[in-house]
């Protein structure tokens, strides 16, 4: 279970670095001088998705390790006010989208 960072999308804002409950992320300066986010050790991720929620550029994708039955699907989330749009893209290109609303309680 871990995350992957799409460096081409990352703006280097540092929001994810601040929020990770394990301090697992850091900013690195690329040869171009741009700052980009990097994971210190991808095995240390708890899978809480706090960094995904914080990232305005959807640069962070969440996946399950093969030791948990992962097969390469990647999850991202986009937040607009109370709505979170969770998107799962499988390796074959198929996709599922689920919306959650912070205003409505779980029914179970």
């Amino acid at each position: 279970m871990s995350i992957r960072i799409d460096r081409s999308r990352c703006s280097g804002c540092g929001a994810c670095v601040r929020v990770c409950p394990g301090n697992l992320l850091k900013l690195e300066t690329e040869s171009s001088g741009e700052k980009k986010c990097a994971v210190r050790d991808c095995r240390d991720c708890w899978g809480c998705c706090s960094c995904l929620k914080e990232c305005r550029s959807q640069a962070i994708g969440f996946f399950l390790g093969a030791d948990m039955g992962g097969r390469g699907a990647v999850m991202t989330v986009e937040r607009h006010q109370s709505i979170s749009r969770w998107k799962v893209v499988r390796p074959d290109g198929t996709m599922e989208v689920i919306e959650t609303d912070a205003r409505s309680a779980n029914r179970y």
Partner: protein
Amino acid sequence: MKKNQENACRRGDGDIAAPGAGSAKRIDCDVLIIGGGTAGCYGAKILSERNPELKIVIAEKADIKRSGCLAAGVNALNAYITEGHRPEDYASYAMKDAAGIARGDLLLTMSRELNDVTEDLEKLGLVILKDENGKYATRGWRNLKINGENIKPILAAAAKRGKNTRILNHINITRLLWTDGAGPSGTRRIAGAAGFDVLEGTFYDFRARAVLMATGGASGLYRPNNPGFSRHKMWYSPFNTGAGYAMGLEAGAEMTTLEMRFIALRCKDTIAPTGTIAQGVNARQINSRGEVYEDRYGLATSQRLYGTVEENAAGRGPCYLKTAGITPETRDDLYRAYLNMAPSQTLKWLEDRVGPDEANVEIEGTEPYVVGGHTASGYWVDSKRATTIRGLYAAGDVAGGAPQKYVTGALAEAKIAALAISEYLEKQRNAGERETAETNRADEELRHQADAEFAVYRRHLSLGAGSASKTGAEPAADLNACASEDRETLSAASAPADGARTPFFDVQMLEEAMQKYMDQYAGGIGSNYRYSQAGLQTAKSRIGSLMPLAEDLAADDAYQLMEIFQLKERLKVCLALIAHLEARRETRWRSFAENADYPNASDNWLKYVNSRYENGRIKIICRPIVRAGENYEHQN
């Protein structure tokens, strides 16, 4: 790197140096809160409401916005007194579930606050499901259904609103500071704590008149369910590493019931909570033959787990929660519910293209944790949540004696502790001059304590890559960027440390060794949670031999320094845990503390096993049960 220090009120600080690795900052406040999680944030809110002039500092190792157990969200409020029930009912339920080893006074004082803190949470913005009459919709007789995704940001915002509350994020605390009264039986009094900035490397010397310990429990002591790539995919937060217990032990505080480990029954692989399925859609526990087995072993928390272990051992596993057959609407509701607390489970269902309506959800037991919010492990406190060190209070998963606290219980304890701290400070203020003189005399001693801790930081850093002593080069520029007037600098830190040698091991190696020994000799997953007295002896000696190795670990930067301390904390908690497991010569709770040499419960052990760390050894103290209706006060 710009740090997120909101609401910074700089009044009253000692010397403030420019931040940078190895420089030391002194911060004076009235109340230091260690750990800005559930209890820490709420404690700050209540304290500031009670007395807005109090200078409160929260020192949090991550960022209070999403730190601790609540990072991903929670699925329900597990502790609430529903209509027709009384706080006494909840207290007696929790006492029974713990087979009599819990504190009647703590459970009752907590239970009395549960509904007030719930209402407060709702006012702060938590969404709670209501029925058609506008009343909270309940799940069973103690649970409320909520949307818990944003519960932590809500609590963090409440803490930040405090007029004189200062939030210091990314500060990892490693040691308490204290003074001792005159004479051999002099009262030990809390005076502050030492720590460092995980991102920038600055050392911190906090001085406070009272301290609230709220660092949560301890995970990662045992080999986890997914020991390889997904090693941190565990139920309890892998970043709660038992720091509060370790610091308390070091300071001589008394601990209770560490041997009542918590082992959770969770969804296989993702280790996601099962309550939403078990209570939410009433799914029963079944074995691979489709037989409902939960009734055969009893319904206490430990028995549900034990039953699953036994079914597997008898070859009737894997075990499942029977969900197949639920409607597609229910399935979709579950997808959303899990996204609000454990997104990995929804991802797993979607990735597999098989939802809980089609396939039952496999379950497994986790590795054992020490978590005072679920079981009764932690600081030995009085009914005001004062520990055995004056001025040091504890709340939430770090505090012992009150199992089944969960979120609302942690808030309740934080409230009780906050009000008690306010009262304590008031009394101290009235005690007046004498105190101040005493404090001044103590200042030198406290500085000494902090410096000794900083010397340990410097030693680990001096063994690491940024160090001149190891590389023969100047320390890296960013690590050396501290102002000249700073009390300590990393260049001084980088001078060859006494007896330092090139480290042989790294943190990972020692952590794996610790987890392996605990798994094999102290009742981990690999031994079906059972242990023997002889095995515990082996565990003790193996853990003991890892401790000096941890002192020689190298840190290239402040983050690695935190990793080293996390390991050291866990090792100390392991040592105390082993002593507790060894002391309780019975099996009162299946799986949680299953002693193969003493397989039955015994009335002789209807007492608390407590401990104190003295002269490098864990000393066991047994104490009589505080039953419902009784009250316990410290006798010093």
